[in-house]
């Protein structure tokens, strides 16, 4: 098992390196350089700026500096706003995004597993039908539609929630719900299928034959096994929450890292785009790694070698 974990960590490191290299290659293949974007600079000034950021060096040397800086936690500076660094953006925006992401993970897990179980237990009855329709819609309607519809109904028509910013807890209701819609639908379906599978196993019949109450059978015997596949989805869920944050933070006007990323895309601020992409990439790889390692402890049936 230790061998598997070490192997998994090494492959995560390779993936992160690959992400960094790919990002570097892509961003360097854009025609022109950061200097050619704005006003024309005087040659001396341009040379000085290039020297400061090491842009006059050969590409391979730039690449090595880039790797060194990033591994030391320095994700670069903006070429458009003086003094703005990627680290600053991450420090400013990430707390908001983390708060939204954390609450919506909780919401997805509790609501998704809950409704999945209910719909499995009431298979093909009305609650099941309703939940399947809702989860189909959740996977069909893009998150920006959910977000705008939510604001239109609950802000414009009913006036229950504020529309913009991130002050009170009321500001967070919309983002948390909308960002989680897609994953919620997925978790509901996954839980339903998995519970239905488990309920047909022999050990469930044994448990029932022993005379255990239905509640004990479901909670102690069925769920513990049924929820194992749901854990594997946690990695992709984090990735989907991050991409969801691009859109939802934009609609709700929250200055989280997602909306700062979309702003830097609109401004074509290449160094910021590069820094935030790598940051997201590392975040997702590490999250997936943690889920994979946890899985070893959760599901001892699987042999890893």
């Amino acid at each position, binding site marked *: 098992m230790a061998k598997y974990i070490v192997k998994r960590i090494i492959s995560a490191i390779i993936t992160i390196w690959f992400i960094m290299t790919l990002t570097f290659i892509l961003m360097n293949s854009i025609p022109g350089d950061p200097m050619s974007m704005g006003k024309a600079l005087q040659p001396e000034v341009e040379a000085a700026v290039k020297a400061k950021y090491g842009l006059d060096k050969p590409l391979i040397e730039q690449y090595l500096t880039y790797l060194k800086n990033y591994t030391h936690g320095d994700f670069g500076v903006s070429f458009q706003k003086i003094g703005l660094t990627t680290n600053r953006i991450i420090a400013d925006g990430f707390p908001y995004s983390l708060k939204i992401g954390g609450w919506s993970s909780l919401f997805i897990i509790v609501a998704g597993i809950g409704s999945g179980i209910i719909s499995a237990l009431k298979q093909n009855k009305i609650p099941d039908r309703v939940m399947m329709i809702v989860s189909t819609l959740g996977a069909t309607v*893009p998150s920006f539609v959910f977000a705008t519809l939510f604001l239109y109904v609950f802000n414009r028509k009913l006036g229950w929630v504020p529309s913009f910013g991130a002050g009170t807890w009321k500001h967070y209701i919309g983002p948390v719900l909308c960002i989680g819609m897609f994953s919620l639908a997925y978790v509901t379906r996954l839980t339903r299928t998995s519970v239905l599978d488990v309920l047909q196993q022999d050990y469930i019949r044994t448990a029932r034959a022993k005379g255990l109450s239905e509640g004990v059978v479901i909670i102690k015997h069925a769920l513990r096994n049924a929820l194992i596949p749901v854990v594997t989805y946690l990695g992709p869920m984090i990735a989907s929450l991050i991409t969801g944050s691009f*859109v939802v933070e934009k609609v709700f006007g929250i200055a989280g890292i997602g909306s700062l990323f979309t702003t830097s895309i609109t401004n074509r601020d290449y160094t910021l785009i590069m820094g935030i992409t790598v940051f997201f990439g590392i975040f997702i790889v590490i999250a997936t790694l943690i889920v994979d390692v946890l899985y070893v402890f959760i599901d001892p049936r699987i042999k890893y070698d």
Partner: protein
Amino acid sequence: MENIKMSPDMWTPLEKHEKDAEKVSRQSLTFWQDVKRRLKENKVAMVSLVAIVIVILACVFVPMFYPITFESQILDFANIGIMMDIYEVDGSYFYMNGEYYLIDVTSDGTLLKKHPLVKDDTANKRYIYDFNGQEVIVDYSPYFNAKVEYMNLEKKAKKDPSIDLTEAKFNLDNAKKVEIKAGDEILNPVDRVHNKTYILGTDNLGRDMFIRILHGGRISLIVGFVAAFVNLIIGVLYGGIAGYVGGKADNIMMRVVDVISAIPTLLYVILLMVVMGNGMMPIIIALSITYWLSMARLVRGQVLGLKEQEFVLAAQSLGASTKRIMLRHLVPNMMGPIMVSATMQIPSAIFTEAFLSFVGLGVSAPQASWGSLCNDALLTYMTYPYQLFLPALAISITILAFNLFSDGLRDALDPKQRK
């Protein structure tokens, strides 16, 4: 066996009509005929298929014959909704849009022209129009005052966080915006009519929403179909070669797939779009080079199973080339799972395209896709909700139809898998 008594009547010849008793009267069905039959029985899948066909036909053909093109704009008719409240003055009718412009209309809702403004009376917060000698005043001072009040409250709230602005904002949003007076008499809408000139209203530049949604549908559908098709080609070739050749080549090729799939795909689609610039081709390319992984995995798995079977050995011993075995023998046998996977990729490509356009990486104006139409409408959707929700509805219906159809197709191809 010895105990069986042979009676003579067992040997009497059959009557002619009895001869066909054991004959299989129903025509035997091939696998695909069977799939078709099962698909036809699935009502949800058939309704979805009809919806898809209608959407495709509408997007392809209607713009060819429609009198208005997607890029023609009449700024005077900007932001006009689907339903119009019309007012009457001396037998002629007008409609007021969200920016307090008066537009002459007929009583059944055909737009005529923008009514010329006589005086913009900023001091008293009102516009003055002249209707056949009758003075019509659009008075927006009550709303203006309410807004000033709200902004004062907002200033206070900055110092004192205990003030909740939600209710005040709500009251402001739902306050009556203007009073329209003819002389001293307050005018009320006489009728609510359909917009006859633009059936789904216009956008903020006075372009017809209906034709823009259909045109946007063309772009979105092209992206969906082409991306899915390119993924299919790359995935089948890559996975087919890896699975068929096997050994070291397979090992290396699959490691490459593993590494690429560990990368969060959407981030790379975004990065590729940033590199290549906006437009339809960059979206298709970006989607094509990132989304083929699952198809490659699926095809490799299928090929690994199929290549051990006798018909491949037979083809090999007949001297068929690898290319021929792959394309004529292996691919037709795994068409089912490939088709299901491909139909599932169409909606996911449309979804991603909408997402990219919404983030600002989509097609550039005056072109439109469903995502970019939503993005264009985002700033004003509280005032003109139809501009955002109509294209959003188009996206949702199309994706839903594709999803339900591919579910049905999967069930039809593999009834055992059904849960």
